[in-house]
């Protein structure tokens, strides 16, 4: 279809670009709609460019340099990556992070799903609303304040938790000062703060399940565990995938709790990858090396997420 200019105000006639955009033809209208669409998403695109893609590219470039803020960056090729390959502390931090991810995600998903099911089935709607609010409240707290407060509670000698465990005849547990339990303590703290978010996601998933399918299942005799396993779980699987993927990505970036509660200690037993990255950059003033760690973490997150999506083909039901 050829474009045909029907009418144009004089001012546009003199500017060919404006004339092209404002052409009162089918093609012109399409262009205008398209432009409007792009204008709407422009803030997001610009935000992504400035705050995500730009820093990512900057970090990628920085990983080939030695830079301590004070002196000009010095190009060192792949030295940072060679150092990374031989840095056992970085691998310890990855191991710690993976352990934390497994512990927190398993606890989060199972507890959140159980709570969501309980609240979903609750007959007393007012109490259900109260519980929804109560479980979500910790999400509104800052990670730092939660870590500080729970740090006091978990204190080995003066903490409230050991005080009450003492009534059960349990000796003081070095929650934050023993490498045997410190990751578990941090996982517990994180689960307490994040449970509400995952819980709300599951509750949303349960509420949007088609009622007729559940009723049909009941008519067919599916009750209890069988109904949950054969009907609810498959229907909820896209929600579970979303919750697991977002929680895993979030937990791979563990920082607040271990940084405030233990500073990564004892030794490196609770040091996470993001802590290593932060300390390399802002503690040791080795921004190139910190960037190399960041890139490695980025790659790991991509791979883990990719694996999750690949495996999801086998168990996620989109019907």
């Amino acid at each position, binding site marked *: *279809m*050829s*474009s045909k200019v029907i009418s144009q105000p004089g001012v546009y006639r003199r500017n060919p670009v404006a004339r092209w955009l404002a052409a009162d033809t089918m*093609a012109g209208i*399409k*262009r205008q709609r*398209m432009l409007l669409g*792009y204008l709407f998403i*422009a803030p997001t*695109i*610009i935000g992504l*460019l*400035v705050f995500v893609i730009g820093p990512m590219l900057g970090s990628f470039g920085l990983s080939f340099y030695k830079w*301590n*803020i*004070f*002196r000009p960056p010095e190009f060192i090729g792949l030295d940072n990556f060679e150092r990374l390959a031989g840095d056992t502390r970085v691998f310890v931090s990855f191991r710690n992070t993976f352990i934390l991810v497994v512990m927190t995600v398993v606890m989060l998903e199972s507890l959140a799903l159980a709570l969501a099911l309980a609240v979903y089935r609750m007959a007393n709607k007012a109490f259900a609303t109260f519980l929804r609010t109560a479980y979500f409240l910790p999400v509104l707290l800052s990670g730092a304040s939660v870590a500080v407060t729970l*740090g*006091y509670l978990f*204190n*080995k*000698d*003066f903490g409230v938790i050991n005080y009450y465990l003492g009534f059960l005849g349990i000796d003081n547990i*070095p929650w*934050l*000062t*023993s*490498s045997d339990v410190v990751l578990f303590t941090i996982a517990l703290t994180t689960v307490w703060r994040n449970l509400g978010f995952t819980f709300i996601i599951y509750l949303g998933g349960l509420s949007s399940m088609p009622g007729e399918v559940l009723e049909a299942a009941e008519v067919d005799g599916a009750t209890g565990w069988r109904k949950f396993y054969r009907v609810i779980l498959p229907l909820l699987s896209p929600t579970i995938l979303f919750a697991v993927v977002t929680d895993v990505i979030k937990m791979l970036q563990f920082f607040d709790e271990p940084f405030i509660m*233990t*500073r*990564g*200690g*004892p*030794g*490196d*037993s609770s040091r996470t990858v993001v802590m290593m990255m932060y*300390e390399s950059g*802002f*503690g*040791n*003033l080795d*921004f190139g090396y910190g960037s190399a760690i960041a890139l490695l973490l980025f790659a790991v997150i991509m791979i883990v997420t990719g694996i999750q999506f690949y495996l999801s083909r086998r168990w996620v039901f989109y019907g």
Partner: protein
Amino acid sequence: MTHKLSRRDLLKMAATSAAAATAGLMPTIRIFAAPPRQDSVTLRFQENADSYGAVVEAFKAKFPNINIEFVEVSGVDHAEVASKILAQLAAGQPVDIGYAATEATQLYAGEGLALPLTQRALDDKDELAEYFADVSPTLVEGMMYEGDLYQLPRDFNAAHIYFNKTLLAEAGLEVPSEEWTKDDFTEYARALTGLGENKDSFGFGWTNRLWGSWTPWFFVNDTNLLTEERAPGGEAIWSTFYADEPLAEGRGGGWRWPTPQANNPSMVEALEYVVSLTTEGLTPAVEIGGGSTLDGFFVSNKLGMTIAGGFWGGALVNAGMEKGSFDVQFWPRWKSQRHQFGTGGAWILNGSGSEDAAWEFVKFNTATDVMLMIPWMASASTTPVRRSMNTAEYWGQTGIENWNVFYDALDKRSDTGPIPAPVFSIEMTNIYTRFTSLATSGELAPKDALDGMQAELEALYARNG
């Protein structure tokens, strides 16, 4: 005609838009970045209005053309504050006047961030003579690096032992004499353990960091984490301001810490002793941090002794502890009774373009009446560097009877030295606290922990030439 925009086109458009937007902003940025009129300067000052509001008001009354903008930076210790200052620098938002404690003095000086102040101090010697005469040369030397002075000290804290007098009374003990020993200390720690209403007090508590921590123990065991020597230089400061001061003799141009010696036998002995306090149950589990956990335990009579400087006096009263219910004493003698300290003061950003205005502000802050405008300084929540401010009246706010030990750690003990804090002190501190935690938690034997610490410190020194 149809015209479809591909994703590539879209990205091109977005990039062009971003570039255009940036270009469009440039004139604005230039306007904001334009040098201020000669008669008006704004200084970004690393402090907060609650602490320095009155000081700034008084300064503005004297220098109406100099504006002060507060930049609040907090952290659990000075190393963390330094990290945040550097983060701001990396983000292109440096402060014009910062506050650095010993932990970061050489970092800022050694990397060229801080402006050398020696010549300015000499140029204004008449104005500053009274200040220097009132400040121990030990503190001034602690603010020097490779022959130059970089900060005018504001406050300091030497590590002393604080005693909870309620628990002392319960144990039937008095605050010991100045000459008490490590063995006396051990007996005190034992006597002060298991007291209180619930019989759950600990004799001694400390936190894992550089200042305080177990650092005083290796100082009195006549060693240090790093070897020490004095840098040459500084003669102009000593001859101008401390010509008749015996304590200034033999001083140089600041401290150097040329090599690590974390695993020498005296260091191992000191750490073994500290760990034995934990294994014997005299010390609670040692955590990393600023020591706030211990505040509450001391106030609630669950801790008999702990490490702190003058800063803790006002803090304990503010936390609700009754005046006079605690007291202080020198660190106990072991092989020596050498004390450690950390001091701090304002530094000026090198190359900010506002150095002259910043210097006026720094000088203004050295006056006694100005220092007392800072609420926590006025309430004895730190140790002022001015000898004349350390009086019975000043420390009477806390009820501390042995307040004289705070400044006597400088005036009566010429061997008192700063905590080791070379240019790369942040990374060094991380290594120090990490291996210390492995020893105190029982994960590693003290000797093994210190061997590991030494290996990493050697690698750190190698990386930093």
